């Protein structure tokens, strides 16, 4: 009983921080996806230079732990701006650095999952589009993308949920999202009630992840008639 009261109490303390979590996550998901799309395109392009650049980028970023990424962005970027553009961005809201770091981190796996989804679509679809006079981009956008989207969705959801949980990164430079808030609550209670705090945190995330799953199922269901998968 006490526990439940405590959890509800902590829920109340954590929920205001959901703003930060959502702002940070949504911006980096959107920006990261766009960057990921460009990377996937570069990987499949005819240009050797683009291909190599994209490969190296993805390899390096995928291998970079988030804490290192945030330090690189938080300390490296102001230095670059100072030296190259002679602008001081030290005073930026720290959230911007978080968003940049997460965007970069998200783009690499996203590019791979987009590439794999794209390659699972029959080449005949592109050819048919070209042969009715659409440009490659139009065909991609109108024919390939909707089909690849459904294939990419479960993996995309994986990445999104992982990103939502990247609280460690935000917190490293003192931006207080829900995970950071939870840690601070525990700390301010001298380390007590950790259970109840994390329980509250897990609950919130679970609800978010359920919502993501629901979205995925809805899209998949609406698409079921259009493909013949091994599903019954």
């Amino acid at each position, binding site marked *: 009983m006490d526990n439940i009261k405590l959890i509800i109490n902590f829920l109340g303390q954590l929920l205001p921080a959901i703003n930060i979590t959502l702002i940070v996550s949504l911006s980096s998901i959107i920006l990261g996806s766009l960057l990921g799309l460009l990377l996937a395109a570069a990987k499949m392009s005819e240009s050797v230079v683009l291909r190599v650049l994209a490969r190296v980028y993805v390899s390096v970023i995928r291998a970079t732990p988030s804490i290192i990424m945030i330090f690189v962005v938080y300390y490296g970027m102001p230095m670059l701006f100072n030296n190259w553009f002679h602008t001081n961005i030290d005073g930026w809201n720290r959230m911007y650095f978080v968003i940049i770091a997460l965007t970069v981190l998200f783009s690499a796996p996203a590019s791979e999952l987009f590439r794999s989804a794209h390659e699972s679509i029959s080449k005949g679809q592109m050819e048919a589009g070209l042969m009715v006079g659409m440009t490659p981009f139009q065909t991609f956008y109108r024919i390939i993308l909707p089909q690849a989207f459904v294939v990419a969705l479960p993996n995309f959801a994986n990445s999104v949920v992982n990103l939502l949980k990247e609280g460690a990164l935000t*917190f490293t430079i003192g931006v207080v999202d829900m995970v950071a808030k939870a840690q601070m609550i525990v700390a301010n209670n001298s380390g007590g009630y950790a259970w109840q705090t994390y329980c509250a945190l897990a609950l919130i995330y679970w609800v978010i992840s359920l919502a993501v799953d629901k979205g995925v199922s809805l899209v998949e269901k609406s698409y079921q008639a259009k493909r013949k998968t091994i599903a019954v």
Partner: protein
Amino acid sequence: GLGSNKSASSNKAASSDKPKVIKVAYATTNFPITYQNDKKQGDGYDVAIMREIDKQLPQYKFDYVGTSDDDVLIGVKSGKYQVGVKNIFYTADRAKTYLFPKNYFGVSDSGFVVRTKDKDKFGGLAKLAKNKGKLVPIAPQNGQYAVIADYNKKNDPKIDLGSADTFVVSDALKWVNEGRYDAFFAIRPMFEALVEKKNGANADLKDKLTYVTLGGIKTYPLFNKDQKEFAAAYDKAIKKIINSGKASELSEKYFGQDNFKLLDQPFK
């Protein structure tokens, strides 16, 4: 150097009327030493002392930045922050990387949480070492880790020192009670808040666990290597604050006792 901030670290502008801005980084998860209070402001003993120092130094204006332990250290080293506080103990190695001031600004009451019945067996560094007690792993960023490592360098038998990332304190208390470990390196205010207070999170362990003070450890703010001038100004200011009794007052406020007195006793 990396991200060095010219405007804040140059050494001459001290005389001008515009006070120089000093960025003070504090870790947000070290209650009651450094933390963020309900008003989202920096708080805790270390922060309060820094505010006192700010008052003494009109040529500087302190700007407080709450962040993680890691960032305090890396930020101060790189010069992003001029000074950092997070219950830092002095070691010779650290003094190579950072600028430690001459004068300490606080004392940490450090001790072991042990089972009451095993108080005599494990309640002290030498006792724990001799009886081969198991110590709850300590986060290496934490100053306590260095204390034990230091002890092990100078003494025999040695304490079995394990490391683990920051963990949940109340669980460590349970572990000691259950016998998973024999001692837990902690600070007094934590033990008081969790176990001794009537509605503390672990009040149920009140009779079963005991806190044994090992002694007081001096704590310092950490300066960026380029901040010699500022550190010197600090050294003057902190002397005044301690001598005036203001520091003891703050210690009473945040730790419930005057930790400075602990320095008179030997470290057990």
